[in-house]
């Protein structure tokens, strides 16, 4: 199974996300990049694969607020790299600023989720995310793998 790439700098947020994925019975392997630079190095073909996973992710959960290259800039980078355009990227953010939301979609985000404050809501949103992307929609088999 293709892995899910989580780009998240906050350990706590990563832990809550993993907790929610685990709680909802998510079975895909999960790889984490703590910053956009690390994520990009994983996604770009030809670069040395890190973390022992040589398979391209089938999906990316991208934190909006990242140190260094932020989420929006990373979206722009990916947009300029044709093979990566196939990977759906869902942005997770604390910002409900309409401008941020609009900018993410404009640069190719497949979805935008506001990070919930209550655990129940968190579970609900992750469940919804899985239901759609992993049970309803078809994901690319090996995006970014080939040419």
């Amino acid at each position, binding site marked *: 199974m293709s892995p899910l790439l989580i780009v998240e700098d906050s350990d706590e947020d990563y832990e809550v996300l993993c907790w929610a994925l685990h709680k909802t019975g998510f079975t895909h392997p999960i790889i984490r990049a703590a910053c956009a630079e690390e994520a990009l190095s994983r996604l770009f073909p030809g670069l040395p694969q890190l973390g022992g996973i040589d398979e391209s992710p089938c999906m990316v959960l991208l934190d909006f607020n990242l140190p260094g290259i932020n989420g929006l800039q990373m979206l722009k980078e990916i947009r300029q790299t044709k093979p990566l355009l196939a990977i759906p990227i869902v942005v997770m953010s604390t910002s*409900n600023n309409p401008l941020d939301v609009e900018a993410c979609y404009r640069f190719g985000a497949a979805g935008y989720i506001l*990070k919930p*404050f209550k655990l129940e809501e968190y579970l609900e949103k992750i469940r919804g995310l899985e239901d759609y992307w992993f049970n309803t929609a078809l994901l690319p088999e090996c995006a970014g793998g080939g040419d």
Partner: protein
Amino acid sequence: MDHSQVWASSSTPFVNLGANQGIYQGGNHVSADPVDLTHCDHEPVQFPGGIMPHGVLLLLTLNEYRIQGASANTLPWFGSDAAQLLHGHLDRIFAPDIRQTLETSLALITEPQLPRYLGSFLTLQGSHRFDVFAHRSGDFFIVEFEAITAEVAESWPTGRIAEITDCVSNLHSAESWQEGMAIGVRELKRLTGFDSVVGLRFLTDGSFHAIAEACEAHFLSVFDKRFPRSDIPESARRQMLLMPLQYALDLDYQPVPLVLADQTQNPLQIDLGLAVLRSISPMCRRFYNNMGVQSRMVISLVDKGELWGFFSCKNTAPRHVTYSDRLAFKLFAEMSALLLVEKERGEQLQAALRAKHSISQITTQLSSAEVLPIALGQLPQQLLDPLDSTGASLCLDGQILCAGVTPEETVIQALIAWLDGQPSPFFITDRLPALFEAAAQCQAQATGLLAARLQEPGQYLLAFRPEQVYEVNWAGDPLKQVEVDAVSGEERFTPRGSFEVWKQDMRGTARAWQSYQAEALIDLQRTVIQLQYADNQRTLQLRLAQSNIELEAFAYIVSHDLQEPLRGIANYAQFLLDSSSGQFGQQEQNWLNTIVRLTGKMSDQINALLQYSRASQQQMALQLVDINLLLGSVLDSLSALIKDTQTQIDIPQTLPTLSCDPIRATSVFSNLITNAIKYNDQPEKHIEIGFSETPTLTFFVRDNGIGIPEQFHDAIFTIFRRLHGRNDYHGGTGAGLALVRKHVERHGGRIWLESVPGQGSTFYFTLASCQAFPSASDGGINA
């Protein structure tokens, strides 16, 4: 004489600056002549007691025309001596019909005025023909008889008038008033035939300057020489105004005394001020004698009742000038005065206008400059021309920018410090070294100074002129006019014996500044100060705006970053609650729940803060909006709240369509309506929404709620400021009205309220940048 006295350039009379401008005029004043000339000033030139010998004078009574006095020279002219004529009538001299004519003319002379020409008449003996003039003096008619000799009898008035007309035309063609004067003396010399005709201009200190001269080679030239004030005493000046043309046929004469019928009367009491034949003062005759002049004619050039200058005609031999010729010359002089004065004024005005124009151009440039200090930096160069200065400096915030020839920077710095100590922000002098010691070392750069202080001390516009080492060519030593009387020991003025050039060095002085130049700099000073003030204001506003932007960006970033740990705290508290059921007691579980609740609250507040800072940061998106539709959607989104609280909402008017940011306008209405519902404890809640168009388009939201005491009318617009407990009136973050005000202000509008506690509040707001259009319902544009 005060040697430091300032002279104008040789061609331009000194222009005194208006003392009412509060300008300190360092040394630019005309000082009074210290030599006591009162003897001369009081010389009784009007009462000489005698006349010149080339004519005859009679005194007649006012009512009977009886001869009460006569000059002692009647015998050769009239055939009878004075004593024989006394008490008689004019028929002793003229035929009865001429007597009749003369007396009829005299009857018309009722006031003292310039002698009236009565005509030319033959005496009874038929031997002499006379030009006859008469005027009133005290209790007499003074009748004067000037013999017309065969030689001059041929003068032809029409020819003269034609010549005068040509002369005046020539004057018109002059480029400058000086050239005009040169043409004047040339023409006058040709017309009068005098050896020398000089055109002189009075300067403000009373001295006078020979501007133009037409003279025979053998005659002593006085061209470009200066004559001190004392050369024409005050009494003589008065006489020059009284009698614009004074003529003496031959200065080498013995005055003819007056013989009076009334033995008790003194001839010296008869006022001969207006008499054509009045004997000239002995002092004056000596003065001319010393110059080798025998015949002279002085024609005054008068401007608005003041002596402007005069033509001085001199001849080494006696020279006849008939009355009709004198009349023609007087006319010419009067025309000349008009033209010369007008030309001089025109030239000054032109120069002043040019300076003013240059300054106004500079002002325009400065006003439209984007960066004021850079534009100001060009001022020194720009000032040189309009101020006619050789150097100029701008001193601004410790920096000194110079153009042209200026003193060294250290001297300028010292000068600035010195100027800061002067009482007036404007300073003008043409002899700086006499006032400011350090200037002695830079006389070649800065002897003349115009200084204008700008907004702050130490900021100056300076214009410099170099020392003008020039000489005044006096006609004789102006100081050697006072002699000590050998007998009395008194100082007394005497006419000079020598008119050779006496040079006076005028060191330590610069060419005098003209009043329009000072005024031009004052204008510029005013403008620069205003611009500096505006520039400061703009800089402050920019800084304020910048700091506001930074503050809002700070609020945005901080609140964004605060959300993350806060959510972490909430999450872990929930983890604890979930994973520890049974391990914690009820108390501990309550505490954990409180943590979760409080973090939620804080998150709401951070969100409100984010929203508030976004309200400032985000661009306005103006578009035409139909407020009816906008309000409709606001009420839709609040429908649950409205329904739950059973609030009645009235919108009696059709609202306008206008240009605004719809998202912000939605927030404004939504928050105001929500507040109107929340802060209301009436059983029947009622809200009215409307607008008025005068004086500006103003919306209002009126409720019958709890009202707000007046002392809180400002405070309620402050973020997180609450008037009630957190959980009263359905809580809320306390950012709503702050957000509303921010939105309104971003539109350039303002918000205020009227309220009576217990009865309700009305919030008013304008959206100033908005322009109202006919409402959609009136067929206007739909948003």
